[in-house]
């Protein structure tokens, strides 16, 4: 893999396949709010036993436990789904009034979206079909497979949010599929499918430069479709599309949120895997536990084997300037990380370390293999601590 690293995000048409139900799913839910639930309780799909907590499957509660979800310690409910139980029913589909009304807000709220402030504001909305990291083709594949419905969904979306125009960022190679939307009040603009152009901060910034937008808001294509769906049915979407990359190549799969990684990796040769990264090779999170559930932000799962792993080293900076040259936000990375190494965090702040978007390009290019992003994160968190202390 190392030899052929490419920053191009043009991936082939890889059909999204449904994965069978796992043995267990893990549903993050604060235990304080669901004291009335107990181990052994039978639950039904779409039941709202506790306000704000909708069950994604029919099954039985097995355990209440704590685990790390997206790197944060969280209460989770372990549920054993019943196979073939609670088959898909067809939810009632509601009409959307021309102006957002209370029913719409209620349906959105029931699905976990509290969007009043956005509906009332007049900031521009940018829907992005560009993936945020490499080895992930979720957004482009969803675009491919849903291109027929997009027109209708954009109409709906404009009604929900009471907007004249929605902005839509698509990767260059898929522009032909959607350019017709332009005549329907959607501003479609091309983005070169090269890392890091899909990172929200960078995408939005280039959108502002191209279209002079007003305090734009970023929305992933997948989430855009979920919101449209929720507005009509009043039900959240429990499915999540994931790109799995392992020794067999890339695959797009569709799983229920809360599915543990081990279930996704069932078909892979995990015995020789040494690292499981969720969220992409440049910005992702290395998991230490294969029970970790899939969440909204798990766009990709990338399995690394012994030969792919880079070992952390603490070499001295040779001041070559490659990190600065590749930094999309123009930071003096070599100085910042040296200061951070020697605990001079205030100097890091003066150099603008907070602007770092953690794209990982500096570490990627550093010839001595310094853990630059780690040092930057250290500086950021220390600065936060310092500021917290000052406020107190």
């Amino acid at each position: 893999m190392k030899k052929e690293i490419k920053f191009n995000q043009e991936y082939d048409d890889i059909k999204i396949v449904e994965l069978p139900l796992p043995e267990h799913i893990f549903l993050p839910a604060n235990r304080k709010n669901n004291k009335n639930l107990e181990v052994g309780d039978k639950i039904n799909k779409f039941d709202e036993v506790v306000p704000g907590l909708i069950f994604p499957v029919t099954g039985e509660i097995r355990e209440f436990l704590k685990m790390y979800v997206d790197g944060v310690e969280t209460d989770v409910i372990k549920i054993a789904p019943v196979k073939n139980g609670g088959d898909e029913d067809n939810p009632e589909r509601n009409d959307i009034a021309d102006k957002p009304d209370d029913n719409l807000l209620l349906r959105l709220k029931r699905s976990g979206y509290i969007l009043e402030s956005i509906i009332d504001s007049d900031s521009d909305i940018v829907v992005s079909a560009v993936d945020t990291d490499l080895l992930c083709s979720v957004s482009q594949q969803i675009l491919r497979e849903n291109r027929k419905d997009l027109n209708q969904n954009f109409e709906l979306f404009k009604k929900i949010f009471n907007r004249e125009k929605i902005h839509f960022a698509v990767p260059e190679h898929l522009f032909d599929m959607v350019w017709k939307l332009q005549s329907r009040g959607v501003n479609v603009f091309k983005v070169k499918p090269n890392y890091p152009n899909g990172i929200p901060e960078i995408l939005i910034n280039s959108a502002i430069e191209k279209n002079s937008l007003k305090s734009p808001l970023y929305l992933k294509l997948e989430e855009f479709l979920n919101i449209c769906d929720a507005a009509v049915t009043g039900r959240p979407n429990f499915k999540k599309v994931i790109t799995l990359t392992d020794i067999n190549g890339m695959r797009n799969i569709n799983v229920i949120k809360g599915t543990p990684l081990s279930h996704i990796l069932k078909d892979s040769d995990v015995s020789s895997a040494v690292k499981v990264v969720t969220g992409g090779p440049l910005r992702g999170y290395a998991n230490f536990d294969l029970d970790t559930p899939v969440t909204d932000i798990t766009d990709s799962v990338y399995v690394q084997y012994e030969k792919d792993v880079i070992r952390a080293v603490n070499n001295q900076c040779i001041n070559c300037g490659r990190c600065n040259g590749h930094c999309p936000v123009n930071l003096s990375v070599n100085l910042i990380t040296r200061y951070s190494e020697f605990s001079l965090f205030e100097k890091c702040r003066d150099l603008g370390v907070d602007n770092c978007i953690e794209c990982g390009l500096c570490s990627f290019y550093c010839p001595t293999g310094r853990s630059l992003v780690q040092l930057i994160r250290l500086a950021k968190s220390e600065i936060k601590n310092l500021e917290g202390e000052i406020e107190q």
Partner: protein
Amino acid sequence: MKLIVSSPPHWHSGYSEKKINLDFIIGLMPALIHSLYFFGMHAARVIALCVAVAILSEVILRKIFKNNIGPFNGSAVYLGILFSMLLPPTSPYWLIVFGVFLSIFIGREIFGGIGSNPFSPVLVGMAILELSWPSHLNVNLTSVNYNLGFDCHSPLTALKSAGADYTSKFSFFELGIGNQVGGIGSVAIIFLIIGGIYLLIRKVIRWEIPLFFALGVIGMSAIFNAIDPHNFACPWFHLLTGNIAIGMFFLSTDYASSPFSNPGKIIFGLGCGILTVLFRVLSVHEDGVIYAILIMNLFTPMLDKLVGRPKMLKTAYFGRGIK
């Protein structure tokens, strides 16, 4: 099952320090081969001794300073070869040993090793040698016993002592292909340029410093030349003599002692070029490249303040599914 965890990114370009040094050495190869062809065993002796002393001093000094950062990565080899390129073929053993050792010791290790040196290490060693034993480095004196098949009169000495009119006996072509006396490698102008272009293509060095170094030399010498063409040589003569070619691509582009910001690089390059010509024209020295770069090294921390302001790329998200 045990999994490895680490902070992102989980990929690396694979381009390591070792490969950088290898690329630098490859960049010097054309000049090195030219020197071997020209001076034969004399050049081989100088180069081999330089490299050996460089490696040895690095190993010993790192032991003494308990500086065990990083494995052997070829930087000493590169430093040794680069140093040898500046020496005349007749340099005595003790001079080489002394010079290379000082380059590594005072030039680099004393400041904390690779990346921390405020001055280009090779130049520190060379400057000390030039100030202490000028006669051993005087290319006119050291080449009297050679018959190289061309005029063994250093073009820069000729310029200094007899003015620009006298230099018309040197043809630019002869100078360019290395038919002049000087350091064993630094005279091979065209070969150094080939090596430099290799470095530029491989993106080992950036184009700003070499280009503006050359522009500085051309601009400054053109001014002098316009004032008095009989006394001051034309820009092309300056570019094709002395250490300018090697300085442009190899000496001034030392990572640690040159600025990393792009505007800084431009000013740095220009400064090196202008100072070189000023030294050549106004000082007692024939070739000012070494001192010019050392002086500009002093300004590096200041020039690094010229980086642009960081961009603010804050944005707001909504919906779930974003970090």
